């Protein structure tokens, strides 16, 4: 029975229509007591073409690079691509407070931890 479940799950996986080459962006992930910080490299993608989705503990990054070029190509080593990558985020992230900025083709995503998840030091009272 569990074998059957596995089969159905596999086939039910969402497949998007693809007309662009898909590339997985390189990322750096950092953490401190306050937040998780993610840097993703997406050269050539503008602010409006990036979507960041957090749904049920799944973080999806997606960005489309569309470059308009005229003239005859002497050589071409890169072109239009779709950057796509997914992560699972812990439930302790405060989804409403997530912020992102884009600088020099690198997306910085701040995922703050919720108050309850921050480490606390408990003071010991002298008895």
């Amino acid at each position: 029975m569990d074998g059957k479940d596995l089969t159905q799950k596999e086939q039910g996986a969402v497949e998007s229509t693809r007309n662009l080459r898909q590339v997985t962006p390189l990322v750096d992930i950092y953490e401190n007591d306050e937040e998780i910080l993610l840097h993703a490299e997406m050269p050539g993608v503008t602010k409006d073409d990036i979507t960041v989705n957090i749904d049920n503990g799944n973080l999806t990054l997606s960005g489309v690079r569309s470059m308009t070029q005229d003239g005859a190509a002497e050589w071409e080593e890169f072109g239009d691509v779709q950057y796509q990558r997914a992560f699972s985020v812990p439930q302790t992230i405060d989804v409403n407070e997530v912020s992102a900025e884009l600088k020099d083709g690198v997306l910085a995503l701040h995922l703050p931890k919720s108050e309850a998840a921050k480490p606390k030091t408990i003071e010991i009272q002298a008895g």
Partner: protein
Amino acid sequence: MFARISDIDRMFDAMGLLRGRFDNIFSEFDRTLGYEPKWSVVSNYPRTNLYDKGDQFELVAEVPGLANEDLDVKIQGNYLEITGKREVKTPEGYRAHRSERGSATFTRSLTLPSDVDSAKVSATLKDGILVLTLPKSEAAKPRQISIN
């Protein structure tokens, strides 16, 4: 007896799973991770495109994470050299979970198809893409020849 039938059922499920994998094999095959560091010829320096626009060339390079001051462009005749330096450091007070982007210094030299007027070259950097506009030198510009 029923246990046996469910075993057979499971075997077919497993085969179906395998078939599902094979169905996706080609669509998953071309998913590449960033710069394909091990296979690609262009691994340690940025990828570039060069376009010929008649009286000028346009060179486009992928330089994510580099600011103006990290880049240096030199031009002489038809020889072009791009030098850059990127430092990726763990921000103060953070612990690193994953670091795929690395620090790097690179130099890439290119030979353009013809001489360019180095005085008129302009460069812009936006969203990690460097665009160099390289006007061709007078001798290399296309000329219209009228037929008598």
